[in-house]
């Protein structure tokens, strides 16, 4: 049993970190005891990753408020290399390995065993062999990393951390991409490392894993520490953790709407999609859902649950391969095999990443507004400038885009106004069903309210709206019905009036 009176290895006090317009962390405290596995849980956007970036020096000392005490000494890291020197190693969700290099080359990348610039390969390989034995990976040091599966790559990352004399290991969602038995192996390894005195911080959404290995749990919500639970002094139920994660009160307000739900517009049945590169991986598994006229339907789920992939694959097969399933609009099967056909058949998809996928940043508001439906403002391929301008002005007014003129480049607009331009573009195609992927990501509270108002107006006009969001309060505040997605499948469906965050969370963590 562990000694709880031991001096903690890490103490973070009153950490506050602000970004323009957002307080990402607000007076957060985190204490990790020596030799324990400390789980850090919370919803998307609760501030877990930000906290770990503060700890590892990605956000250098001085860019945040508060103190970090590591091994009894106050520390001020100005970069990752500083924190690594002290033995704090972070393993990110997206692995940071060079696929075309060998295991040994990856492990010693940046800290090569070399004399006068010449690498000592026998020594490198020998040490790699020892490290691989420690993490229980039976591969040769010269094996190329891209030939390994994700689970084994994860182990290489841990071996790399061990090579750096790690004292505190931080794992960000290490099992998110792993199969069940790989996850178990990884968790066992964490327990072994703990026995050797290495402390770790485990960020995870999977509460069963957390319950299995964690000695204590810190729950973050909206950038604040909600609770720190000691797993040894009391039995912590998953319900308790979920309650702390989601909180009770609604943080934001949503515009009122009286739903007038009409006929079923879009009906997707048995939708299956496979990963475009890893062809053996099924990304969407038999998903079925429907949207009616005047209805706002939410799709909840964690990152990586397949929500975006579902939407993109529906919209002109813009994602994945071997897509199967049927799409019906007003009871008639429609062709969505290209973006052009999907648009012509009444679908619109507002992407999650508006800068990379939604807008041509170098071009102005007008040109972005008409891009998806140029045919409407042109005759025989020649654009009618006056008409195009009128269209742009109309949508600018209707959606309240704040810009000096429609000839302003969209790169100069704020996030909220950029999002309104993307919405303008899709409204101009006059769709029946709009799929909005994270429509309020990265925009401020005032603009969010405006976007919600627009969504309500669209539903009021009899359009069907599908809203994908990682912010559960937003879905609860806006949607008539909510589908919960997990691991590529629809895990459940809730009426808006019956849904609450606990129910959604438990559908996710238990499916």
């Amino acid at each position, binding site marked *: 049993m562990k000694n709880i009176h031991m001096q903690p290895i890490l103490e973070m006090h009153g950490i506050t970190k602000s970004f323009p317009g957002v307080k990402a962390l607000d007076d957060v405290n985190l204490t990790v005891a020596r030799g324990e596995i400390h789980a850090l849980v919370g919803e998307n956007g609760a501030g877990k990753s930000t906290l770990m970036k503060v700890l590892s020096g990605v956000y250098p000392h001085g860019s945040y408020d508060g103190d970090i005490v590591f091994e009894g000494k106050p520390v001020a890291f100005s970069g990752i290399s500083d924190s690594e020197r002290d033995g704090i190693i972070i393993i990110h969700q997206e692995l940071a390995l060079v696929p075309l290099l060998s295991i040994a080359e990856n492990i010693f990348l940046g800290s090569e065993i070399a004399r006068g610039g010449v690498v000592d390969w026998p020594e490198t390989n020998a040490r790699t062999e020892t490290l691989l034995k420690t993490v229980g990976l039976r591969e040769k040091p010269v094996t190329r990393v891209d030939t390994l599966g994700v689970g084994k790559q994860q182990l290489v990352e841990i071996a790399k951390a061990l090579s750096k004399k790690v004292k505190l290991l931080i794992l960000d969602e290490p099992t998110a991409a792993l199969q069940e038995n790989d996850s178990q192996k990884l968790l066992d390894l964490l327990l072994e490392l703990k026995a050797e005195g290495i402390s770790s911080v485990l960020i995870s959404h999977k509460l069963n894993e957390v319950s299995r290995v964690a000695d204590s749990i810190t729950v973050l919500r909206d950038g604040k520490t909600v609770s720190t639970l000691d797993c040894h002094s009391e039995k912590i139920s998953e319900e308790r953790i979920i309650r702390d994660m989601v909180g009770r009160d609604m943080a934001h307000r949503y515009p009122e709407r009286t739903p007038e739900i009409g006929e079923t517009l879009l009906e997707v049945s048995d939708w299956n999609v496979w990963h475009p590169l890893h062809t053996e991986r099924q990304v969407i598994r038999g998903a079925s859902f429907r949207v009616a006229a005047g209805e706002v339907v939410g799709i909840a789920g964690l990152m990586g649950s397949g929500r975006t992939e579902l939407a993109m694959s529906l919209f002109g097969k813009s994602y994945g391969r071997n897509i199967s399933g049927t799409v019906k609009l007003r009871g008639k099967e429609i062709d969505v095999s290209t*973006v052009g056909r999907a648009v012509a058949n009444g679908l619109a*998809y507002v992407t999650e990443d508006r800068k990379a996928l939604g807008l*041509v940043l170098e*071009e102005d508001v007008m*040109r972005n507004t008409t891009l998806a439906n140029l045919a409407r403002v042109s005759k025989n391929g020649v*654009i009618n400038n006056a008409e195009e301008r009128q269209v742009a002005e109309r949508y600018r007014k209707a959606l309240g885009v704040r810009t000096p003129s429609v000839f302003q480049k969209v790169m100069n607009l704020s996030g909220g106004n950029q999002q309104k331009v993307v919405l303008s*573009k899709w409204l101009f195609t006059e769709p029946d069903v709009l799929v909005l992927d994270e429509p309020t990501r990265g925009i401020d509270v005032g603009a969010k309210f405006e976007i919600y108002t627009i969504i309500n107006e669209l539903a009021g006009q009899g359009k069907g709206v599908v809203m994908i969001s990682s912010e559960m309060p937003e879905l609860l505040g806006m949607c008539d019905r909510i589908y919960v997605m997990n691991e590529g499948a629809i895990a459940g469906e809730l009426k808006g009036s019956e849904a609450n965050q606990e129910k959604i969370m438990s559908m996710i963590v238990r499916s």
Partner: protein
Amino acid sequence: MTEVSARERETAAEGAVVSIGSHLKNHLRDYGMLLALVVIMAFFQVVTDGTLMRPVNLTNLVLQNSYIVIMALGMLLVIVAGHIDLSVGSVVGFVGAVAAVMLVQYELPPLVVIPACLILGMLIGAAQGYWIAYWRIPSFIVTLAGMLVFRGLTLWVLQGQSVGPFPRSFQGLSTGFVPDLFGVGRPNVTAILLGAATAAILVFMAVRNRRRHMKYGIEDEPFVFFAAKNGLIAAAIVFLSYMLATYRGFPNVLITMAVLTAAYTFLTNSTTVGRRIYALGGNEKAAKLSGIPTERLTFLTFANMGMLAALAGLIFAARLNTATPKAGVAFELDVIAAVFIGGASMSGGVGKIVGAVVGAFIMGVMNNGMSILGIGIDYQQVIKGLVLLAAVIFDVYNKNKST
């Protein structure tokens, strides 16, 4: 909401005609280009003791640069779409060779040879565009391969020999002149009238455009600039027309070049295809997710480039009155340089036809001027290289300053 619209009005008012200083700052690049051309011309006019502006030399300047300008039109589209075409020089040589063999060895009439060669060029462009658009092979690689392949084929078609001379009617493609309809001869009244008409049309269109923009409150050019710019351009056109008229009038290629420039300006400014090419180059993924057939557009852009390269090849062969295995060597570099000097962006989505044409003439005047001065080819290359670098540094500097 009222607050918002008040703010909008305010900013809209600010957006209208601004002070001369800030306007100059915002459009440094646009004026800079023209100014650079004027300065370079003035410089060579002085150092060559007036040889540069002599009617014979002006005519030469047009003949020498026509094929670069014509290819720059296509290259601008390719570069705006986010690609590059290194094969155009070899295509010039290859098409010239094929035309020569058809004209000289098979004695086919030019009216058959010219369309056939244009189609051949289009097919060459399409063949390269196919791999680039549908197989996503980088255009640099595909057209580098094309550059080697078509240079090799040029040698093979010509059997390493020069083939010529051509029938007069074919030479007319390049060295022919628009006859004087009024029979005066010198000065060529037709040329003067054509020049004056062109200037008048340009001014008329500029005024109409400005009036329309004023109505919408989106005109930001101070009147002084507007008047000076258009006055200068009109005067330059009339003056150059007169100069050309005192020699032999307008060369046929000048007409070809002017018509094509006008057509491609229209294409890029006013058509859905042009608009989509800019969107494709600006953000391919966003364009694709907006339902734009990005692959087909890329493909067509290259087919178009191939056709223009073929036209350039015909004009070049006609001018030399022979097809040589060396024809078109390193043309691609001049063409690409012209487009970048003209302000296009390597990353795609940005660039103007007018810029590319002015860029081509900057290169052309420098070539011509330095040749008159008898500067060696060694120095010429160095100077041209530095001008290209300076133009792009100027661009990047401007961009960094504004953000």
